[in-house]
């Protein structure tokens, strides 16, 4: 990767329209999935997200990078309202999906999470069998009822998550008996079993070894054909490898949002450049 860059001014990033990346990735899809405008978030008095504007494109991988505490995970949780679970949070601004503001009072957060799935940092399968882990949510959402359909759905989800071959003979063993990497793929299978539009991944590989990490990265690449993937990562190389777009967060702001290639070769801002080249963070 060519890291040679010329220093630029802090505010070199000028956007024609708020929320759009500075440069486009022409290979990527540009259908809008989630539109974020002037999003502010406070934890009590702490201003954690400051006027975020982002257009997230569907059927892409968008990586959110930045130093710890910069608000990238907080931002991710805004997209399926997981922040609702924290009592002191106050949110202002627009997160629009499918023409609806996800924070509007009429929006049912359960319906939102049905369309915006999530994979967490630490693999967290339910302490049930592998089969139950997958089929629980589809059954709950009334997607399947017949046993044959259920079997088929479980197989498809596990195949899509690249886990089928490893677990097909032990579907009724507890999901917690799998290895860490397998557990994380089980969680991905669980998320895609309800056919969401968007999958949020909060540092999905940070608890995994390099081989499992590579497997999951390959998986993200495959899954983006069907799903919009937004992932938080601390791993620069991972962002460079899997993401079509990358957003750099710093102190609650999006400092730069850009096509991944441009971000890692010629970032538009000094801060992003310093972070990417490892000068801090």
């Amino acid at each position, binding site marked *: 990767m060519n890291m040679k860059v010329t220093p630029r001014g802090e505010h070199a990033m000028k956007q024609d329209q708020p929320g759009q990346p500075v440069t486009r990735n022409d290979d990527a899809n540009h259908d809008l999935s989630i539109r974020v405008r002037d999003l502010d978030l406070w934890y009590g008095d702490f201003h954690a997200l400051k006027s975020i504007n982002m257009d997230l494109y569907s059927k892409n991988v968008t990586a959110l990078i930045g130093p710890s505490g910069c608000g990238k995970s907080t931002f991710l949780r805004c997209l399926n309202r997981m922040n609702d679970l924290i009592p002191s949070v106050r949110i202002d601004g627009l997160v629009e999906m499918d023409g609806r503001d996800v924070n509007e009072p009429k929006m049912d957060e359960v319906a939102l999470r049905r369309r915006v799935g999530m*994979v967490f940092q630490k693999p*967290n399968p339910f302490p049930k069998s592998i089969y139950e882990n997958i089929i629980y949510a589809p059954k709950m959402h009334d997607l399947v009822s017949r046993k044959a359909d259920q079997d088929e759905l479980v197989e498809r989800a596990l195949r899509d998550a690249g886990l089928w071959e490893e677990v097909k003979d032990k579907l009724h063993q507890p999901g917690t008996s799998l290895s860490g990497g397998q557990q994380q793929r089980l969680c991905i299978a669980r998320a895609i079993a309800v056919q969401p539009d968007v999958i949020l991944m909060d540092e999905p590989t940070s608890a995994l070894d390099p081989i499992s990490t590579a497997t999951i990265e390959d998986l993200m690449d495959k899954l983006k054909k069907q799903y919009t993937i937004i992932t938080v990562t601390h791993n620069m190389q991972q962002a460079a490898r899997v993401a079509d777009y990358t957003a750099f967060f710093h102190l609650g702001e999006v400092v730069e949002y850009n096509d991944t290639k441009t971000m890692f070769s010629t970032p538009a801002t000094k801060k992003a450049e310093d972070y990417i080249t490892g000068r801090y963070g």
Partner: protein
Amino acid sequence: MPKSFDDISAQLRARHRKSARLKWISMGALGLAALFLVLFFADMLVKGLPAFQQAQIQVEVDYSEETSKMPLKAVDRDMSRLVSRGFLRLIPGRMEDNPDLLGTKKMEWVTATAEVDQYLKGHYSRLKDDQKAIVDQLVDEGRAELRFNSTFFTSGDSKMAELSGIASAAMGTVLTLLVTLAVSFPIGVMTAVYLEEFAPDNRFTQLIEININNLAAIPSILFGLLGLAVFIGFFGMPRSSPLVGGMTLALMTLPVIIIATRTALRSVPDSIRHAAFGVGCSRWQMVRDHVLPIALPGIMTGSIIGLAQAMGETAPLIIVGMVAFIPDVSASLSDAATVLPAQIFTWAGEPERAFIEKTSGGILVLLAVLITLNATAVVLRKKFERRW
């Protein structure tokens, strides 16, 4: 100049001595506690085990016309003082049930009086010397012996020690605890679920939490007063009944179950809640399908221990009238009943020597049940314990 190992050891000697001393003191405390426990059990066993045996004597029973009216004449005069009057009283009834008996004479093993029983067990007895001589003779002839006391387990209380048993109290305990469980388990668990999973953390819920913790420390007799005032006084429920007793004990058990359930819920990792929300569970689905199943062993353990506590409780039941003389075994929730510890309390107040062993026997039964309950709790916890 760095110090050698020997120099350092010399300095450490006093510290090692101190820790050794403390170790011996703590072991002494433990030994003392164990000693008391052993003494208590030994005393109960020595005093209580004889209660499971009862003297029986073989006498000739005369089923005549006259006996059906005056059953005391069924056995001859000398012997009739040794035979339990409880047995003799039953004779007319038996003759009515079985008319063939009329006009026959039979040698039968019958229950002896408590005094004969005590005499045979070598305790103080109020038998006169001539009666003692007869008993001695019966023993020599093999017509008097100690046998397993099934009456103790099959009949209720009686004024005659040889006929009294724990059956009515055991039945009362079962019914009372069923009511306690049915009332306190759902209310306690749902309260804990609300406080832990639904309620916002504000002044009001903190106040509730403090009060629940305080409730667990309230003297149990006050719950009896509450039960008397509310269930009997206000709602007019039947006095002395397992219904009222069970509900009163439920009040006492509630805080225990709530606290145990909250602890069990709190030990469920948040990652499970996040996973459930992540796949689109509503809050109730999250609790019902994921959190409660994981917390259930802890909830059951806490509830069993709460119930065991309630089972050993006497004070609140005095107030609602369950410490009573209940000779009949009744399976109704609204009839007067008593419970095991109350039965023990009643027997402990009897002046007759024979009731001392009944008291200890009752304690043994109660202890056995309590140990079983607590062991069940431990087994459940071990069996369903999850490791993360």
